[in-house]
């Protein structure tokens, strides 16, 4: 079984947002209107109905302006923090091809996956009280199609394929960029989460933060303890948690979420 992966060559990304629109359309997400936040970026951060966001970062160094654009979405880690943190059986699954997916029917809306994610990706929907994120279009990949974002990218800065092959491609592209005079070009392929199935080619690889990418992503220690050496205890707590949640639900009904920022209040377009 090959590992399904996505290569994002940021040096070819023009920030056109076609991937954002394609992601929402394929996944039947509702279009909303945001507030103005002083940027070309569609919204400040990912949302429950918006799983794929291009971050626009202006960086000025030595009088040289850079406008770095990088697509941001679930990284599909080999050792997913969300999955480690999730107390609900079957709510987060890792497919044989490495894709990490949320099964909303099983999600209890506890939000632990957000805590567990070193990339801060999953989002809770105030409406459904379930967690959502990029599924790597598992419904498309299962049918042999590329994810919607990759299918729609006009500059071919996105490539879908087997991870080993894409890492090779990324290294070779970074080498070509270094040869063309971009000394700091390199591959973003962090190891801290068992490796990610989304890898980047960056022009300024020594500064991933400039692109909005964590330098050394790691699953929070608390989550490791949660399912690590004291896993048995974790399991007891997990079962207790589920039962507690169940009884709580039966007794008090669904939890009322306060809006976590103005995005939740956006009217439908």
């Amino acid at each position, binding site marked *: 079984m090959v590992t399904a992966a996505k290569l994002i060559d940021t*040096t*070819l*990304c*023009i*920030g*056109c*947002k*076609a991937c*954002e*629109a394609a992601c*929402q*359309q394929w996944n039947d997400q509702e*279009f*909303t*209107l*945001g*507030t*103005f*936040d*002083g*940027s*070309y970026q*569609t919204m400040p951060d990912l949302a429950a109905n918006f799983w794929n966001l291009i971050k626009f970062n*202006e960086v*000025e160094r030595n009088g040289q*302006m*850079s*406008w*770095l*654009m990088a697509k941001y979405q679930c990284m599909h880690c080999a050792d997913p923090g969300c999955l480690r943190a999730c107390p609900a059986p079957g709510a987060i699954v890792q497919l044989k091809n490495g894709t990490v997916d949320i099964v909303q029917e099983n999600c209890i809306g506890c939000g632990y996956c957000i805590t567990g994610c070193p990339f801060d990706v999953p989002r809770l929907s105030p409406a459904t009280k379930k967690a959502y994120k990029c599924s790597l279009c598992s419904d498309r990949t299962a049918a042999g199609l590329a994810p919607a974002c990759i299918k729609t990218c*006009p*500059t*071919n*800065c996105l490539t879908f394929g087997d991870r080993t092959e894409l890492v090779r491609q990324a290294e070779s*592209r970074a080498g*070509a960029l270094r040869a*063309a005079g971009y000394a700091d070009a390199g591959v973003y392929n962090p190891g801290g989460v068992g490796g990610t199935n989304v890898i980047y080619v960056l022009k300024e690889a020594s500064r991933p933060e400039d692109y909005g990418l964590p330098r050394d992503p790691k699953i929070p220690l608390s989550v490791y303890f949660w399912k690590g050496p004291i896993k048995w205890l974790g399991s007891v707590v997990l079962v207790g948690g589920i039962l507690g949640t169940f009884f709580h639900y039966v007794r008090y009904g669904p939890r009322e979420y306060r809006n976590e920022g103005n995005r939740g209040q956006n009217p439908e*377009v």
Partner: protein
Amino acid sequence: MTNGWTDVANADVVLVMGGNPAENHPVGFRFVMEARRKRSAKLVCIDPRFNRTAAVSDCYVPIRAGSDIAFLGGLIHAAISTGRFQRDYVVEHTNAAFLVKDGYGFEDGHFSGWDAAKRSYDKSSWEYELDGQGYAKVDPTLEHPRCVFQLMKRHYSRYTREKVAEICGCSPEEFDKAAGIVLSASTEGRTGTILYALGWTQHSHAVQLIHAAAMLQLLMGNIGMPGGGVNAQRGHANIQGSTDMGAWNMLPGYLKLPRANWRNLEEYLKANTPKPLRPDALNYWGNTPKFTVSLLKAYYGDKAAKANGFGYDWLPKAGETANHSWGFLFDRMYAGGIEGMISFGMNPVANGPNTGKILAALAKLKWLIVAENFETETAAFWNARKLAEKDYPAVADPSQIQTEVFLLPASCFAEKDGAFVNSSRWLQWKHAALDPPGEALRDQEIIARLFLKIRELYQKEGGATPEPLRNMTWNYAQPECPSLEEVAREINGRDLASERQLAGFGELKDDGSTSCGNWIYSGSFPETGNMMSRRGQEDPTGLGIYPQWSWSWPANRRVLYNRASLDKGGKPWDPTRAPLRWNGTRWTGDVPDYKSDAPPEALGAFIMLPEGVAKLFAPDFAEGPFPEHYEPAESPVENPLHPGVSFNPAAKVFQSGIDKLGSSKDFPYVGVTYRLTEHFHYWTKHVASSSQLLAHFFVEVPEGLASEKGIRNGDRVRVTSARGHVEGYALVTGRMRGLKVGGRKIYQVGLPIHWGFVGRVTGPLINNLTASVFDPNSGTPEYKGFLVNLEKV
């Protein structure tokens, strides 16, 4: 485009100037990325703003809006003065060696022949010196003081790197860096392309700007080369098609508009059929009578005969010097000189300059028909006061407007078949994806029903000059809704006796035996079928020519002027990038821009032109044979080259009471309008997904200016010009910086265009700020570079 999108992948250098393809042509931009990936091509971006293209470029230089000719003039000077040009190409394929008449000159901002009273040039001193046979004299050594090369060298000697920096606002070092990359494409083994769009066409000196780009490319030997050319990126899916079909100021196929002083067909043809200026010039425009007569046969069929000048009399004619382009049309409407208007696929309230004037002009119509997918600002113009009074305080109350408005629901592009002509000149046939909803009709049905009804009224009731309508052929199978395939066959042309579809324009006759709706499209629908629907992906030359994919005008040729990719003797300048080869009896590769069986030495490489070579010196334009830097109509500085003649003397500036110009005392900043990836013109503000990607109108404000004015990112600001104002959020950015121009610090303010008073998302119409100032050749308004003020609200 002289070349085409797929061809951009052959470039070693991509100069993007007056365009922003990463932003506005993201799909075509993939070929720029392919050039970078496969050839390590260098991308140079010259623009007032550090935009999305700049973000992925190798070299970005900021310049002041309206200073592009100075920058290109600097490149021309640098090329000539340092020998970075392709001398053999220049001698063999351009008019560099042609001698110009004694008496031509340029002094203090005026070329010779300026008539101050008429505000136009007498161009007689711009002509070539002819020999006894009527051919231009040449000096292939390029040494004669009156040869084009020496005149050009002298003209651009003023455009030093320091002068460029003083005018444009960049530093001399930034200019040097860009020049180093651009001029590296002047060797035989390297080719560079130029991509431009409305950033070049929307100036009062726009045509000369593109002329300057062509000169630079000719000097470097990049015209006719794969990966070269001067490439206009068109803004709508079919804007190239509408230009080709003469939707503007021409007849189809770039035939000149008939004028009242050409009283019959003979006079029209005499005035518009050029004579060769060199013995080896093929002078293909010499076939103008064949193109014109065949067009008249397509219009009037059997009614067009030799005896009646093939119906030339029935064509509408403009006055000798009359201009019917946009600015003149609305000026006349504003003055009350137009009764009604049909607005089809166009939204003049949004896209014309000086919104207040357009709104006032429409209010003077008796009737207005708008055929559209949505209710546009034009259809709703009468309601502007109610919808957006704060933006247009001077507009009349609906109760005062007597214009009767008809909004006809029309189908959108996906609801009809037909061909789109893209920037690459490809006619790509498409199929209807679905039927028009509700009562919406296909465009051709709306036009056909109007035509048939009006003709019926003429037949019943008579009227002045009924002949143009009565004699028009309309023998379609379904007269009320002609199939577009039938129309396409008609445009291709046929032999009238045998009813055979023509194979190409080479078969056209001037005796009335052929008909053809547009000579440059002849060959798109021959006997073998619809060439436009082809989707073959073979690429025999390996140069991205794809001859079996759709059909490209003219004659399915993909690289225009491709004969110039070889020297006079037929040897390719670059054997790895030769679109054509001569095999001893005929040409192979791309369709030759040359006589298909003529040997290399027989003819000049530029077969359309009477010179047989390309024109560096072009006496065709209103303001001079060489491009010269003139300031925009509203500029913060006097022209450093000739302060006495600061602005283009031949440009058109309207002077009605509503057409005001401002000065830098009241309006100290330079405004520039532009488009964004997220939206398409004024249409996608009706679409949910695009509206989400970018909902709010904003003004891009340089950090330095923002701190001077105490404006923070996200504050509300008001931008004012002498015409009107807009209000929106400030997007404070380090991507725009203050420029030092003529010793002063000049700030520019960025103004995206996509909003209006109708739609899911609304905002101000940016043209409320812009002025009725037009290029004298193209009639395009000056949207890049006008004066504004900026205040925090």
